[in-house]
């Protein structure tokens, strides 16, 4: 089956892995998940950094899938299949992700309550693992109480919070207020990311976070800066 879709500049333009990203997304849209998986594994085994795969293939293809659904070029089922496939393929990279020596720092990473888009914060957690952190990834839609308990139980240095949909900004503020009012707020720094914070300047400060990152790579540096 030929994929007759014109991909955006974000996927195929200034992307150091544009050919790979295009081939990967073509395979997923043709429902060829197994071949897509092997493509990624082969690419990693040939020496391409897993972090580059995350940033330039997975992140960009996820963004593109969202755009394709927005413009009605793929349907909801296709979007869900592509997302689920990428999550599965990310899991297959875990032998590479968990191979770094530990640095003693600890992260709890979560979507805010009500937020279902978890891929971004999952990537952040994996980047932290690759940087030697111990990470406790909570996934989507986690209640405030559970997040507070996790920060305490894990002795987290950093809480990374993700919100993708605009209307979850309020829930983000409420979570940050709850963390700062609790005993764990004295020790854990709060790092925030997600689309609302990428598009509204200084929104991360308005909601009370300690730091902000546009992507998983930047999140590591920001976290290190917060703890220095």
């Amino acid at each position, binding site marked *: 089956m030929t994929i007759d879709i014109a991909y955006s500049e974000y996927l195929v333009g200034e992307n150091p892995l544009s050919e790979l990203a295009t081939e990967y997304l073509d395979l997923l849209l043709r429902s060829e998940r197994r071949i897509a998986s092997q493509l990624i594994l082969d690419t990693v085994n040939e020496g391409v950094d897993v972090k580059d795969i995350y940033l330039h293939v997975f992140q960009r293809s996820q963004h593109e899938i969202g755009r394709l659904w927005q413009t009605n070029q793929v349907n909801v089922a296709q979007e869900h299949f592509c997302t689920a496939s990428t999550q599965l393929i990310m899991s297959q990279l875990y032998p590479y992700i968990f191979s770094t020596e530990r640095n003693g720092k600890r992260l709890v990473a979560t979507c805010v309550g009500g937020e279902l888009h978890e891929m971004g914060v999952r990537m952040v957690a994996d980047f932290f693992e690759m940087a030697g952190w111990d990470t406790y990834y909570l996934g989507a839609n986690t209640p405030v109480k559970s997040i507070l308990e996790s920060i305490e139980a894990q002795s987290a240095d950093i809480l990374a919070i993700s919100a993708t949909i*605009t*209307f979850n900004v*309020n829930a983000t503020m409420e979570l940050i207020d709850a963390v700062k009012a609790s005993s764990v707020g004295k020790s854990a720094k709060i790092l925030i990311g997600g689309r*609302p914070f990428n*598009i*509204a*300047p200084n*929104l991360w400060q*308005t909601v009370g976070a300690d730091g902000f990152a546009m992507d998983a790579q930047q999140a590591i540096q920001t976290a290190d800066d917060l703890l220095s």
Partner: protein
Amino acid sequence: MNTQSTPKAISKNALEAYRSAKNVIIEDVVSQSLANKEQIQQHGAEADKLIRSGIQFTMDMLESAMTVGAVALLEDQLTWASDRLPHDNVAPEHVLARFRICRDCISKNLSDAYAAEIVPFIDWMIARQNELMKDDA
């Protein structure tokens, strides 16, 4: 209101009043939207469910944007909607009409003082939606 002006974040009291009245406002907006048969007939039996979810989304989005005083959040959602909603058989003029109904219902269901804080955000949305419609014309 034009889109060059940026409303300030609303007060905690206005936010509390908005949240308390939100369900009533949503019911009011949905009811008035469904009364416009020409704008909903294409949705058939799904009209109530679709309109309701759209209005809920709008009110939730508005709440977040007003709380932090960030119209960039509204801009992003309106731009997104202009690409997506026509594929769901929701025309841009329907969106505009429902924003105007939202404005009226908010003014009706809140005190003048609280409505005065909130309505500038809806006015911004109405102005921006008009701009987007002109761009697409």
